[in-house]
């Protein structure tokens, strides 16, 4: 039996110090990676729908009236930073730093995730005030089909963070919990990738072509 390769799944690998967790993690993380690719197609299609409906404003408000780039800028920085902090949580786990450090980085990530959601919801509310509701036009339907879908993923990630935080306390650093942290980090990085697509295509694309 050859030794497990150090890199056998996407994301930060646990390495030999966590040999048993590493092996168990390999299969399930690969499965999760496949799931993310399926999810990626989901987002990709919503991007496609958005692109085809960018002009379908039906006389309603368009990107120029609705999008607030300052808020988008803040959301981008927040999400990017949370991607770093979730990575730092993973590192703390990998190098057996005290559990407090992991929980700290988890907490920071959660806080960033929640503030991202608050800003996003505030954006939707101010859009609605200007008449930018999904019932208004095909373009707005496509917008609200895509951006809140990403927000929903972030919200699910936040729930996951809380559940894992509890499991770290209740169940301790078992292989199972460690492998879940690996996947959560992967999920969180993935959401940041999608967000890059959203700012590029939905916001800037909308402003250029809408």
């Amino acid at each position: 039996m050859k030794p497990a390769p150090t890199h056998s799944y996407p994301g930060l690998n646990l390495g030999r110090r966590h040999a048993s967790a590493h092996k168990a993690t390999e299969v399930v993380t690969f499965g999760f990676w496949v799931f993310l690719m399926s999810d990626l197609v989901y987002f990709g299609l919503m991007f496609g729908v958005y692109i085809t409906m960018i002009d379908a404003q039906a006389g309603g408000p368009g990107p120029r009236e609705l999008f607030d780039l300052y808020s988008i800028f803040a959301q981008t920085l927040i999400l990017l930073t949370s991607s770093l902090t979730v990575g730092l949580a993973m590192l703390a786990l990998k190098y057996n730093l005290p559990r407090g450090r992991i929980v700290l980085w988890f907490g920071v990530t959660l806080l960033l995730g929640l503030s991202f959601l608050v800003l996003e919801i505030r954006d939707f509310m101010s859009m609605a005030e200007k008449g930018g509701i999904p019932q208004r036009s095909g373009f707005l339907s496509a917008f609200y089909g895509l951006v809140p879908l990403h927000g929903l993923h972030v919200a699910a990630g936040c729930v996951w963070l809380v559940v894992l935080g509890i499991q770290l306390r209740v169940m301790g650093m078992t292989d199972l919990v460690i492998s879940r942290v690996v996947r959560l980090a992967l999920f969180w990085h993935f959401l940041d990738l999608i967000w890059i697509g959203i700012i590029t295509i939905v916001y800037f694309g909308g402003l250029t072509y809408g």
Partner: protein
Amino acid sequence: MDKRSEMHRRERRRYVIGYGGSLLLTLTVFAIAYWFGIETKGVYLAIGLLGLAQLIVQLVYFLHIDRRRSSREDLDLVLFSTLVLLIIILGTVWILGNLAMRMHMPGM
């Protein structure tokens, strides 16, 4: 300094580099939008390319997907997914764009 904390430092640096790179690219994108406006297609092309660059930076530094380190299945999967995505999105835009043009729809 033992080997372990050396590795820790190196891996932490990797994340920080990824973060710094992404931050820089993000700032550039928003600076371009701020200074040049977002009306012209040339500017949008630049923004699109910078977005692509940031995707790659994050894939390499956060998700550790590259030719050297990742196991082959992961990279294959990403490439195949990209192929399918390109077929799906470009096909959709081509078909429906063409249709909208021929039907004189206000939608495209």
